[in-house]
Structures are given as C-alpha cells and as structure tokens.
C-alpha cells in the first residue's frame, strides 16, 4: 500500500511544493513513532491531518520544526526543495517555518512582550495585534503563566503573526478553547495563512492537526489526510474525511477511503 501512496499522483497536492516529507521514520526516545510517512504541501495550501491520539501527528510537526526530542532515523524533509535535516530549530524558524504548540511551556520571567520584541526587532504593531487577539493584558505577563487554554492558543497565534513564517504548523489549535473563542482564533489563523486572498495569491502554507475537526467549521482547508500508526493512510477533501470519521471512526474510515481510492484508480 505504501508503495502506491508514494506515487506522485497520489500525494494530493501539486508543485511547487513548500514542503516535501519523504519516507520519514522518527523516534521519540526509544519509541518509533513515524514509520515511513510521505507528505507534500504545495505553496499556498492548507492541509489538515486527522488521526487518533498517539498516531504521531505532533511528532510529525515536531520533526519538521526540528525539536530536539525527535530523532529522524530515515527519510528526508525538504523545505523549498532543500533538505533541512541538518538544520537546528532556530535555523528552520529563520528559513520560514513556524509552529503553534499544542501545549506551550510556561517560561517564568519571560514576558510575552519581551519575546515578541525579539521576534520582530522591536517593530510596532505588537499592541494592535495583541488587542485584536484580546491579549493586551497578557503582554506583560510571564509566558503561559496562568493563561487559560484559549489564551495560550491565542498567544501562539500572536507570536506567529509577529514571526510571519511561510509554512505554519498548527498543533491542535482549538483544543481547550471554548466555542466563542474558536471563531476569533480561526479568523486570525485564516489571516496568518492568507486564506482571505485569492487562491493564486496565497504564499503561506500550513498544516493543521486536529482530532475533533471543530476548527474546520470556521476555516477552509484544501486537503485532508488520515494518519494512523505513524503513517498517512489516505487523503480526501476535508469535509468528506471529517464526516467519514465522525460517522464510522478512524479505522473504518480508513478502510472505506482506501476502497474508494482503489475504485478511482481502477476507473
């Protein structure tokens, strides 16, 4: 099966690619998490990855970002056609990759404002952006100290809005966020990804991880993937895939989608 999935035509996006993940095997500590994962993201596209807990979704984003707890043992990750495996986390960030953490750490002493100032070299607009995200009163607080789930997620998006990466990795951006705040959050994720622009003008690309799919009610993604046991098993249109998962659960969904795909292939 995996042989077929690595076929160009079955990767469900088209060049130019901003990101190419090829046969990626990744360990976290002693555990093998990713087992030959393939994924290509075209410039301006937003992909969504569904998958049960423990399927390796966060590991994938962490490996792309180059977080030190993830060790790539085989395969390659290319950003704009160039392998980034030899680059440190900060070098990848400087190239234009940004990650909104699912659970960002509490960093005592480091105030949100101080971090934002280092990200954009003291450029203005911080106040305005913070105000838009309803975080004005958090600028002088220590990072994630006593932040609610929603405040943490908005702070992640605020940091990315200042950082302005070209490839935006969003790890469960809606988890722990109450419904009324999802709208606000989704609006700024949309802005970050230039979703308001015409499709040909979008330069920023993204990958969103979700296991509830709530965020998709507010944000249109282009392509969905289902991930299980360290691999991407199938692809489809985001709403179709979400409905399948909701109706049948992951396992059946995957089987069903695979059947559909082989029918299409046969046709």
């Amino acid at each position, binding site marked *: 099966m995996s042989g077929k999935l690595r076929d160009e035509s079955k990767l469900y996006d088209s060049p130019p690619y901003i990101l190419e993940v090829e046969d990626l095997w990744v360990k976290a500590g002693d555990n093998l998490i990713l087992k030959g994962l393939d994924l290509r993201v075209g410039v301006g596209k937003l992909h969504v990855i569904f998958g049960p807990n423990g399927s390796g979704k966060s590991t994938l984003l962490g490996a792309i970002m180059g*977080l030190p707890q993830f060790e790539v043992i085989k395969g390659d990750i290319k950003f704009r056609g160039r392998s980034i495996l030899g680059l440190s986390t900060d070098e990848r960030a400087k190239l234009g990759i940004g990650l909104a953490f699912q659970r960002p750490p509490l960093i005592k*002493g480091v105030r949100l404002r101080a971090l934002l100032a*280092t*990200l954009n070299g003291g450029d203005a607009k911080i106040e305005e952006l913070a105000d838009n995200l309803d975080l004005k009163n958090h600028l002088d607080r220590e990072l994630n100290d006593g932040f609610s789930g929603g405040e943490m997620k908005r702070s992640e998006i605020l940091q990315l809005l200042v950082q302005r990466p070209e490839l935006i990795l969003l790890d469960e951006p809606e988890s722990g966020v109450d419904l009324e705040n999802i709208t606000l959050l989704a609006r700024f994720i949309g802005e970050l990804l230039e979703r308001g622009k015409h499709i040909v003008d979008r330069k920023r690309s993204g990958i969103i991880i979700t296991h509830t799919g709530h965020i998709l009610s507010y944000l249109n993604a282009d392509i969905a993937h289902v991930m299980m046991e360290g691999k991407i098993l199938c692809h489809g249109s985001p709403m179709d895939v979400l409905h399948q998962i909701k109706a049948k659960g992951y396992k059946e969904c995957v089987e069903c989608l695979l059947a559909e795909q082989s029918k299409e292939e046969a046709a």
Partner: protein
Amino acid sequence: MTDKIPEEELKRLERVGYDSSGKLHRAGSFLITDDQIVETEKKEKDVEVLPLKKALEVYPWVEELMFRAVPKDKDEYTKIAAKNPPIGYFIRALPGAKVKAPVQACFFLKTTRFSQVVHNIVVAEPGSELHIITGCISAFYVKEGKHISLTEYYVRKGALLTYSMVHDWSYEVEVFPRSGAEVEDGGVFVSNYVALTPAKKVQSYPLARVKKDGFAGFYSIVYAHPDTYFDLGAATLLEEPGARGEIISRVVSNGGEVISRGHILGAAGKTAGHMECSGLLLKDEGYIHAIPELKGATSDTELSHEAAVGRIAPEEISYLMSRGLDEESARALIIRGFLDIKIKDLPEELQKSIDEMIKTATSGGAI
C-alpha cells in the same frame, strides 16, 4: 573632587549608580576610596550627608545609635569595625522631609590587599522619605582586598527608607557587610541588593526588627560566577502587631557557590511574612543552597515561603528556538527574565544600570 579618579574608574562608579558628572538628580553624595573620604556633598536642605565622625561631634545623640542595630560583638567583623575609627557616612532625612532624589554613596577599593573598614548610620526621621544608593566597587587592578562594613538603619515612625546596594567587585575581593535595621511604627524599610559580578567571597545577613504596622522588605538579585562564594540572606523579626515582612531572592549560579538564607519570625498578632527563594543552576559545578526559615511564635501570624532551585528546562529553550532565537539568546532571555524582579522603589537610572549589568552578565561568554 572626583578629578583624582581616572576616567575608567568613573565609568565603573556610574555602573553602580554613582554619578560624578552632576547630570543626574541626587540629593547628596558620599565617596570613600580605601579609607579616605573623597566627597561629601548635600544638595537638598532636608537631607544631611556627613562623615560619621563629624556627625558624632555635631549630634551627641548619634552615639546612642552606634552598635544598637548591629551589636559590637556580633562577630569578628563587627569587632574589627568597632575597633577602627568611625569612617563611613551619616545620612539623615529631617522629620517630614520627602526627599525624592536619591543620596548616592560609594565605597571604592583601589589598593591591592587593603582592608577597607567602614561604619555607616542612616536615619529617616518621623514621616520622612529617603532613598540611598550605595555602590561598592574595586579598581580593576585590585587583585586582593577586603571590605568590612557595618551599617545601621533607623527608620522612625511613618518614615520610608529604601536602600539599594550594588556590588561590583572583582575576583579575590572578600566582602563582609554587617547591617541591621530598626523599623518603628508604620515605617517602611526596603533593601535591594544586586551582585552580578565576580567576588571571592561575600557574606551578608542583615536583620530588621519591625515594630507596629511597619514593613521590611529585602530583595536580592545574584549571579554567581565560577569561583565565587556568596553566603547571603536576611532576617526579619515581626515584633509587634501588624508588622509585615518580605524576603525575595533570585539567584543564578553559573558555577559559583551560593547559600541563600531567609528567616522571618512572626512574634505578634496580625503579622504577615512572605519569602521567595528562586535559584537557577546553569552548570553542574557550583550549587545553590536555599535555607528558608519561618518561625511563628503566635497563632495570629501568617507566614509563607516558596523555594525552587532548578535548571532551565530543555523544552523552554527549544520553544524559544522554534521562534528563531539561537540557543544562546534563548538562554539569555530566560536568565534575564528570571533576574528581573522589578525592585521596589528603585530610582530609574539605577534600574537602567542594573538592567545593563544583567545584560552583560547574561550575554557573551558568560553563560
């Protein structure tokens, strides 16, 4: 008078908050190099800045304040100070005077192997407000030396005294400040201590006795370089109803040895005290030994403490690196933030120079 001091030393004076240019607003100045009083100046009418020896002649009552807040026979260093002639300052705010600009003082050790011994007395008269900045430095070429000081603070009824001390010694200098404060009814005493540069040994444990509704706060920021030994702390005795106390310290060890002590005694009703000892270890060498002590001697006292000693978590570094900061900048940002406790009532210029020193201590090869 400061003409005699070479340019590069003047810069170091500035680093500890001592302005010799006259540009910054100061209520008075006092400067000692080795055992010579180089400058004594008062600029505002409600404040007095005198050599202690002179004050003893002018005001017979000063004699009664000698060795009252710090007993003569407390230890070998107070004994040495008691035997020496009283070199040091007498700074006083007159009753009701609100002296907003700080009085600046500096002890400058410029001769190698010199033992500088000083005795200071500070009096904030009833209802007054007084801010003192004291910088202690040694000349860059001083390889060995000793600074022994005995300082007594008297905060009268309803007065406010802030005392900020910045140490900027060099390796091989040993420092033994001995100080004590009496805080009368409704008085407020705030002591700030900053030590970010190396020293061979610094040992200090000031004690404040707080009377009815008074407050004593001790705040310290310490960065211990390799081969530096700090034994620091403070004790606050809440002796009468309504007295409050706070001891907050932030210690970074980059290989140095630090003992961080704190003691609060709640001996009367409606007293409250809080202590925070936070330590950050950057290397396997060195240690931070936090010894927070609380003693409640009545049921109507509320005392609490938080103490934490640890390293920077790797995920904090990688998080900041994912935002594009290199590893060194990420560590420096965390350490700088850790040391930033927004010291109470500190004059702006001194806060600036402390920020600058924190920046220096946490950048380049230092970490």
